[in-house]
């Protein structure tokens, strides 16, 4: 059976900009910077806003959130307001991309006509504190993916909703098409990535194979690139496995360097940015660059935006537990 095309037909985004944290007290923390929106926004309220913008319209909602006791009143409130009980994804930094992969799989198999994927994370004191205690946050206050001197991630706000519908695109208003998806586990460690990158490479190959797209047809890769010393090196190894000699030609940026790491919502924000890049035809820079690192031999976009030279864009994410995802985006 031929798979049904999966179209992105609506998108709504809230995200932040890097600044010293004022939303809560960070005087006892080693790190002090995050990408936040002004003031103290409300997660439930912003999720309702972005869901309203894309229109739920009775469609099933797949929602990526941090899975703690604060999530339950949020999901209950959204269920009451929109009349749809969300399916909740809590799998850390691949929660939202897992939801997108599920939505795409359901549509491609002809099991759903329209689905809404949403995700939200707003920088808050508990996660900031435990990431600071775990030495995961950049103490220099700059997120430098794949760069010499990188010293960790910076958290960021993101609240995003995206509508996915069954194609074809003819006569429809669509922003992009999800042409491939892949997910695979490292089978390696509780939280450290497999330094060989084998799991992420398998996720990438699965996404490309599903779409029938060759490595040379990928015009840009929005990397996971958290700025973690070991995480970025493992990702570079994965890209070498997945792309081989073609890797030298592949422009790579991690847009976390521009909007921070929004944890459960990060993959949906990065997919939204990737869809924007497709529309604009310009590949964004990987900010925070100090110089190349021998462990990350990539064609990193560092000085200025580049013109998109091939029609498919790939966005990848990795998480604790060795979870990896890859989403391939093309024109509708």
């Amino acid at each position, binding site marked *: 059976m031929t798979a049904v095309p999966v179209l992105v037909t609506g998108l709504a985004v809230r995200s932040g900009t890097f600044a010293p944290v004022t939303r809560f007290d960070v005087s006892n923390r080693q790190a002090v910077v995050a990408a936040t929106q002004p003031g103290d926004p409300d997660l439930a309220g912003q999720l309702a806003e972005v869901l309203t913008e894309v229109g739920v319209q009775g469609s099933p909602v797949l929602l990526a959130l941090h899975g703690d*006791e604060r999530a339950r009143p949020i999901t209950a409130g959204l269920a009451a307001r929109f009349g749809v009980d969300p399916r909740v994804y809590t799998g850390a930094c691949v929660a939202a991309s*897992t939801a997108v992969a599920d939505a795409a799989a359901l549509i491609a*198999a002809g099991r759903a006509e329209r689905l809404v994927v949403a995700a939200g994370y707003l920088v808050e004191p508990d996660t900031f504190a435990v990431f600071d*205690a775990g030495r995961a946050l950049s103490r220099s206050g700059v997120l430098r993916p794949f760069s010499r001197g990188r010293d960790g991630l910076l958290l960021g706000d993101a609240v995003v909703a995206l509508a996915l519908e069954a194609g074809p695109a003819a006569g429809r208003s669509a922003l992009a098409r999800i042409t491939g998806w892949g997910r695979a586990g490292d*089978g*390696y460690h*509780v939280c450290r990535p497999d330094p060989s990158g084998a799991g992420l490479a398998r996720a990438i190959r699965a996404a490309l194979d599903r779409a029938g797209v060759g490595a040379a047809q990928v015009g840009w890769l929005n990397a996971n690139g958290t700025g973690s010393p070991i995480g970025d090196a493992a990702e570079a190894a994965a890209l070498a496995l997945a792309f081989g000699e073609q890797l030298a030609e592949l422009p790579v940026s991690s847009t976390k360097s521009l909007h921070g790491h929004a944890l459960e919502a990060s993959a949906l924000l990065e997919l939204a940015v990737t869809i924007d890049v497709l529309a604009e035809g310009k590949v964004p820079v990987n900010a925070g660059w100090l110089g190349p690192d021998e462990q990350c031999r990539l064609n990193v976009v560092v000085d200025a935006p580049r013109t998109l030279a091939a029609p498919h864009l790939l966005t990848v994410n990795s998480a604790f*537990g060795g979870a990896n995802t890859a989403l391939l985006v093309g024109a509708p």
Partner: protein
Amino acid sequence: MVELARAAWPEPGDTELPRLAGFTVSSFNPLVAETADRCLTRWHGAAPLGAVGRTALVLVSSSGDVGTARAIAGAVADGRRVPPLLFFQSNPNAVLGHLAARWLLTGPVLALGSGGEPVGLAEAELLLSGGEADLVLLVAAEQATADGESDHATAVLLAPAH
């Protein structure tokens, strides 16, 4: 789908969850690990296995890891030092990483926060029918959140029907 093996916590004779090295404070991760280990052992025998194809891990929990979340929130509220170990277990993927490494499982790793075993079964069916996994280990776990409740979990190993 066909069910290859099933396990639960508690089962008759169970009293106290075994400790899980590397995890602290909360019973959530020992609960998931013990139930999953029982299920995998009933089908495969003792770990480690070597390559067994792509087994996906799907964890469904509405409660999530209440113990770890409350420990972090309590330390922050009281201005106490947050134990660094809590960073590593601050999301449900961590215990799945433990299981994947112990059993050499390389399929997709998913954590869901609603719907219990029925939603997990639907997810498993989607992964198997779409060719994304050869087997799925589904764990549905709920941690006690109030007096009078008790931790409980089920684990089921699933394969395609054909």
